[in-house]
C-alpha cells in the first residue's frame, strides 16, 4: 500500500485499510492477457508509426474505385443522354447545382446561423462565410469545454466548461464573442452537459460525480437548486414542454431506460426500458411529440418511436436491423433531433466511427434513408435545408430537398476541417448545433 496514505489513516480505520490492501495484492493480471495486450499495443503502435507507407496503401484503393465509379457515371449519363435527346447536357448540370448549393450556403442565403461544434474538449463556431471554425476560449482559460447547448431562439450559446474539476456554464452570442461565466464562483462538481428550458429562462445540469443529483438554475446564474433523485442519471435531462418535468436516460433499482420525473424529483415514470443513449430521445419543436430510439436486443432491431403526448399513442416510424445479445460491440443510436417543422428526424446508428451512419426519417413513416456512412453527430439547420455531420475529422453539409428523400442526396459540401481540440476525447462526445440569425430564414422551396 501507499505508505503516505497509511500514515494519514486514523488508527481505527487501519485494519480495514490493511484488508483492502491485501485484497488488492491478490488481484494479479493474468499473464496471457498481459502478453496478448502488449502484442496488440505494439502492433497498433507499429501501424501508427508507418504513416507514409500506410497512407499510400490506404489511398490507392479508394482512389481507384472512385475513378472507376466516375467513369461508370459518365458512361451511364452519356448513354442516357444519347438515347433520350433533349435533356440538358451532363457537363454543366451537376457541378452548377453543387456550386449553387455551396454559394447559397456561404452567402448566407440558406442554412443561416453559425454551426457550433464540441470536439476534443474544445468548442468552436463557424466564421461568417462558413469556411472554417473559430475556436472559443483560445487562451484556454477554461480547462475543458465539454459540450454546448444553443438557447431555444438560437441567439445564445451555452458552453459547459470545467476547470480543475469545477464546472460552470459560459455564455456567448452567435458571434462567439467573449465567453462569460454564468456563476461567478461555481462550487459545482465536474459538469457533463446542460440543457435550456423551452422558454430560455432555466438551465438544467448534472455531474458525473454524483449522478443522483440534477441542478436547476436561472439563466442569469441565480436561484441554483439541487434536486435529489431516487435513481441514477446517465445523461443530460431535457425539460418537458410544460416545463414542469424532466425526461432523462437513467436507471432505477431494477433497470435503465428513459424516465420522466417532476422538477422536485417526484412522480418518476418509466417511458421506455429500451432506450440506451442519453441523446436517443428528442421533443418536437411544438412539444406535441416525443421521439426516442429503442434498442431491442432480444429481437435484434432498433426502433424509432414517436409518442403523441396528448393521446399517449405510440407509433414505430422506422426500424433498423441491429444484433441480438448484449455487449459493448453492439451498434448504438445517438443524437436524435427533429426538424423545426416536425416532419423529419435525424440520428446516428452504428458502432465505431467507421461503421456508424447518419440517417433521416420522416415523422409520417417510411424507410429511413442512410444519408452518410462513417458519419456521426448529425444536426439539422433551422430552415431545414441542411444537415451537418462529422466524418473523418471534417464537417460536411448535405443539401436536403423539400420533398421526402428515398435515397441519399447529392455529394455533400465540405464545410471545414474539425478544429484539433485540447485532448483526444471519445468521438461520442462530439456534438454539432445550429444557432440562428436574428431573422430566421424560412424554408426554401
Amino acid at each position: 500500500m501507499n505508505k503516505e496514505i497509511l500514515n494519514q489513516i486514523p488508527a481505527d480505520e487501519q485494519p480495514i485499510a490493511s484488508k483492502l490492501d491485501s485484497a488488492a495484492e491478490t488481484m494479479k493480471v493474468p499473464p496471457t492477457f498481459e502478453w496478448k495486450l502488449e502484442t496488440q499495443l505494439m502492433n497498433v503502435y507499429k501501424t501508427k508509426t508507418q504513416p507514409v507507407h500506410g497512407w499510400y496503401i490506404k489511398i490507392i484503393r479508394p482512389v481507384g474505385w472512385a475513378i472507376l465509379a466516375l467513369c461508370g457515371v459518365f458512361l451511364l449519363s452519356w448513354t442516357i443522354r444519347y438515347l433520350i435527346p433533349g435533356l440538358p447536357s451532363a457537363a454543366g448540370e451537376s457541378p452548377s447545382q453543387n456550386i449553387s448549393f455551396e454559394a447559397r450556403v456561404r452567402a448566407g442565403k440558406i442554412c443561416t446561423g453559425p454551426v457550433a461544434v464540441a470536439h476534443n474538449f474544445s468548442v468552436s463556431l463557424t466564421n461568417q462565410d462558413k469556411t472554417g471554425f473559430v475556436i472559443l476560449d483560445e487562451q484556454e482559460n477554461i480547462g475543458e469545454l465539454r459540450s454546448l447547448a444553443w438557447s431555444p431562439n438560437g441567439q445564445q450559446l451555452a458552453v459547459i466548461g470545467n476547470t480543475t474539476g469545477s464546472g460552470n456554464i459560459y455564455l456567448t452570442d452567435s458571434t462567439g464573442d467573449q465567453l462569460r461565466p454564468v456563476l461567478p464562483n461555481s462550487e459545482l462538481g465536474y459538469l457533463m452537459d446542460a440543457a435550456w428550458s423551452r422558454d430560455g429562462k432555466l438551465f438544467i445540469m448534472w455531474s458525473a460525480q454524483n449522478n443522483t443529483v440534477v441542478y436547476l438554475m436561472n439563466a442569469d446564474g441565480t436561484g441554483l437548486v439541487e434536486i435529489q433523485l431516487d435513481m441514477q442519471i446517465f445523461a443530460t435531462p431535457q425539460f418537458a414542454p410544460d416545463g414542469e418535468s424532466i425526461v432523462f436516460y437513467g436507471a432505477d433499482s431494477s433497470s435503465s431506460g428513459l424516465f420522466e420525473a417532476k422538477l422536485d424529483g417526484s412522480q418518476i415514470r418509466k417511458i421506455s426500458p429500451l432506450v440506451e443513449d442519453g441523446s436517443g430521445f428528442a421533443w418536437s419543436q411544438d412539444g406535441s411529440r416525443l421521439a426516442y430510439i429503442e434498442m431491442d436486443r432480444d429481437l435484434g432491431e432498433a426502433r424509432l418511436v414517436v409518442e403523441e403526448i396528448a393521446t399517449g399513442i405510440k407509433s414505430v416510424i422506422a426500424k433498423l436491423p441491429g444484433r441480438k445479445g448484449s455487449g459493448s460491440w453492439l451498434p448504438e443510436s445517438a443524437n436524435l433531433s427533429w426538424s423545426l417543422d416536425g416532419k423529419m428526424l435525424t440520428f446516428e446508428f452504428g458502432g465505431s466511427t467507421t461503421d456508424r451512419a447518419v440517417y433521416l426519417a420522416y415523422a409520417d413513416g417510411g424507410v429511413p434513408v442512410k444519408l452518410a456512412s462513417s458519419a456521426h453527430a448529425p444536426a439539422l439547420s433551422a430552415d431545414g435545408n441542411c444537415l451537418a455531420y462529422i466524418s473523418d475529422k471534417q464537417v460536411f453539409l448535405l443539401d436536403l430537398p423539400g420533398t421526402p428523400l428515398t435515397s441519399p442526396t447529392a455529394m455533400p459540401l465540405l464545410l471545414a476541417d474539425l478544429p484539433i481540440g485540447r485532448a483526444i476525447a471519445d468521438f461520442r462526445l462530439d456534438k454539432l448545433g445550429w444557432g440562428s440569425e436574428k431573422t430566421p430564414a424560412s424554408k426554401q422551396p
Partner: protein
Amino acid sequence: MTTLMTIQTQYPLMDDARLAHQARADPEAFAELYHRHITSVYRYHLAHTGNDKDAEDLTSQTFMAALEGIRSYRGTGSYAAWLMGIASRKRARFFRRSGDRPEVPLDAALHVPTPSLPTDKAAYQRLQMDQILGALRNISRDRAEALILCFFSGLSMLEAGLVLGKSEGAVKMLISRGLQDLRTRTSLALEVDYE
C-alpha cells in the same frame, strides 16, 4: 515484439513523464509504461466490474486510448493520474451502457489467480474479495472511487484528486469517511481482526 526483458534494462530509472514523452516515437518506452501501470489499471477495473472478462476488456480499451492520446499528455502532471483518468472515463462509459445489468456477478467469474495456493486458501481469498467488492458497492460512489484509486490502483491522494477533480484534502476526507463507512455500515468489519 517488444519484450519485458529488454525494456526493463533499458529504462530502469527514467520517470513516467520523460518516458511518456519518449513514447511518442519509441514503442519500447510505451511498453515500459504499459508494464509499470497495467496492474494498477487492471485492479481498478476489476474492483469496479468484479469479473475478469470486463476488467480485461476495459484495461485493453484504456491502454488503446492511452496509446492514441499519448501526444496529448503534456508531462506537466502525473502520468498515472492521466492514465487513471482515461480508465475512469472508460469505466463510466461501460456502466452507462450496461446500466441494466448487475455490476458484479460475484461468483466463479471473479478472477483471483492463485495457482500456487492450496484450494481452500484460494477459495478463502475469493470469498474475501467477494465481500470487499460487495462492501465497496454499499458505500457512496465517490468514497468508493477514492478508495479504489488509492488502495487498488496505488495512486497518491494528490493523484486521486486529479482524477476525481477534487483537492488532496477532499480526497483524504473521502478515504477517511469511506473506511469509516466500510467499518460501520458493512459486514466487512466482522471479517477484520481488531486486535
